[in-house]
């Protein structure tokens, strides 16, 4: 018989990884909304953020806030570079070609990460102490609180940016109808670049905050990416608020299945959910199927 504290513990674990999936999903959505592309390199931004943060805090010994900003800025630049050099130059893009291009970029980023950091996984110190706190009989790491807090902060910034700033509104206009947006004088090419920048930045932050808990290594990108995509689809592709709820839900589901079924199959469960949603309701549980028909894949 499961104790209440056990269930609570799984819930905490689930929310913790769910926050990361939510952030990855938000990254997918930003690029998808601006371009209609699913960026298969999304998971690699997370890895890059995590590994860069490890180097800056553990080797260079920068204080955490400074390292946080530097890392996010650097990965954002990587996102911009990806858009400028691999997406922007493609004339007459077909979906198949764009998919393969982002896959190629993900392999290259993985290769670079392996070349620079090697195959070992890296430990990073927690933001504020690694002693777990007691929470109604379950334990919670201060880092988990950081993760939740940062997710909330990012969501707040996200809502502010897309609703109250001119650039954010321009990006939304592009997402809804690119031709109409261009006619109103919005530079849609710049919005595409911006979406890659933001998406890479969010990916980097996800990598930075999870690294103290999971110990980052170069090969984690693919799985983080596909689970984040699962969250994005579950929440309705392009719908970031849905993605956040779906991400947390997926995380909890995964932690619960690890606890109740088997931790060996934990990774398979999230993927199975992804397939199930794709097969039965590709518009996601929070998305409307009518709106989905208007979108192109």
């Amino acid at each position: 018989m499961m104790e209440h504290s056990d269930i609570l513990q799984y819930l905490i674990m689930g929310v913790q990884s769910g926050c990361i999936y939510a952030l990855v999903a938000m990254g997918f959505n930003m690029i998808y909304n601006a371009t209609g592309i699913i960026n298969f390199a999304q998971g690699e931004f997370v890895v890059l953020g995590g590994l860069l943060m490890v180097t800056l805090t553990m080797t260079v010994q920068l204080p955490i806030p400074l390292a946080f900003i530097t890392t996010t800025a650097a990965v954002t630049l990587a996102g911009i570079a990806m858009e400028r050099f691999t997406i922007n130059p493609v004339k007459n893009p077909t979906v198949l070609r764009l998919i393969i291009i982002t896959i190629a970029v993900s392999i290259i980023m993985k290769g670079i990460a392996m070349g620079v950091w090697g195959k070992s996984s890296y430990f990073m110190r927690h933001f504020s102490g690694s002693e777990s706190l007691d929470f109604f009989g379950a334990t919670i790491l201060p880092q988990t609180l950081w993760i939740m807090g940062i997710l909330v902060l990012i969501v707040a910034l996200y809502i502010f940016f897309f609703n109250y700033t001119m650039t954010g509104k321009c990006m939304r206009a592009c997402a809804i109808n690119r031709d109409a947006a261009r006619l109103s004088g919005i530079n849609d090419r710049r919005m595409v670049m911006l979406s890659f920048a933001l998406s890479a930045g969010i990916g980097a932050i996800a990598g930075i905050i999870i690294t103290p808990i999971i110990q980052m290594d170069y090969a984690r990108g693919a799985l983080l990416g596909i689970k984040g995509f699962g969250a994005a689809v579950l929440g309705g592709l392009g719908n970031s608020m849905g993605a956040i709820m779906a991400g947390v839900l997926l995380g909890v589901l995964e932690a619960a299945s690890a606890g109740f079924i088997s931790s060996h199959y934990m990774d398979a469960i999230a993927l199975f959910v992804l397939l199930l949603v794709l097969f039965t309701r590709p518009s996601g549980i929070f998305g409307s199927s009518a709106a989905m028909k208007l979108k192109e894949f």
Partner: protein
Amino acid sequence: MNVKDYYGIGFLAAIVAALPFMVANDYYLGILIFTALNCLTCIGLCLLLGYAGQISMGHSAFLAIGAYSSALFTTKLGWNPWAAMGAGMAISMVVAVLVGLPTLKLKGHYLAMATLGFASIVHVVCVAAVDITGGPSGVSNIPRLSLFGFELNTDTRIFYFCWTMVILGLYLAVNLIHSRVGRGLQAIHGSEDAASSLGVNITVDKIKIFVLSAAFASLSGSLYAHYVLYIDPGPFDVMHSVLLITMVAVGGIHSIWGAITGATLLSLLPEGLSFLSEGLAKFNIQYKTDYDTLVYGGILLVIMLFMPEGLFDGLRRSTAMVFRLNGEKGQGK
């Protein structure tokens, strides 16, 4: 079937027949056997990717199903290797139908992600189901194949057998492309709506080709198991699916011959790279096999950015461009 294709197959058969006399070294023969196995998988993948226009990141899973079926049915149940191979193909085809039915209704990105998810699940199961698959330590003591009492126990024999399979597969694929089904598939690639209005049953045709390409991959996986005699989950990860797509893309996704050349070039590439690394070592530059990932990614990116119709088309067009430039200069004088 085109006359050119007959010549092509004859030419390939001649090269294959002659190669073991030129390559005496078992190590290189082994690499050529792996080349054959990659060619076999890529023929199937090319039918799906280039002719039906459907991307699959899941072919490593069908390789795994073939290899594990061969390994497990022979070692655990004592089946004849041929029966195990057939069972593997049957399982792969059934799985392909089950995965294909819902998946192929999806397009583009969703299809890529769904097949990727499927491949990841198969890989996770291979690693986690320790009781059945042996987990990370894999299955060993897989028996060799034998043809009517003639055991395929030397690399030369296996070489001939695997390449015969490639040629048969190629023959089948070329015939298929020039049949009604093949023309229907190319119509799907052009426009699904137009094809279906002209009476092509899109869903059935796409699933047929997905199942066929799964069977090719499964066969290749089985042959791999019976050649190496030991398997573990390592070679069947998602990265391998990406590598297969790279092979098809390098040769040009719209041509079955491109798939063969691409698979051959990329299978020989690691050897080329190790030659290169010896050369670089003289200049004190360390090349590690770890960089291979980077090289494959770079090749895939360059091909997709600059030569979307494959290496040869790209080279042909760039030389044509150089000639044209020269011609214009000449006219200017």
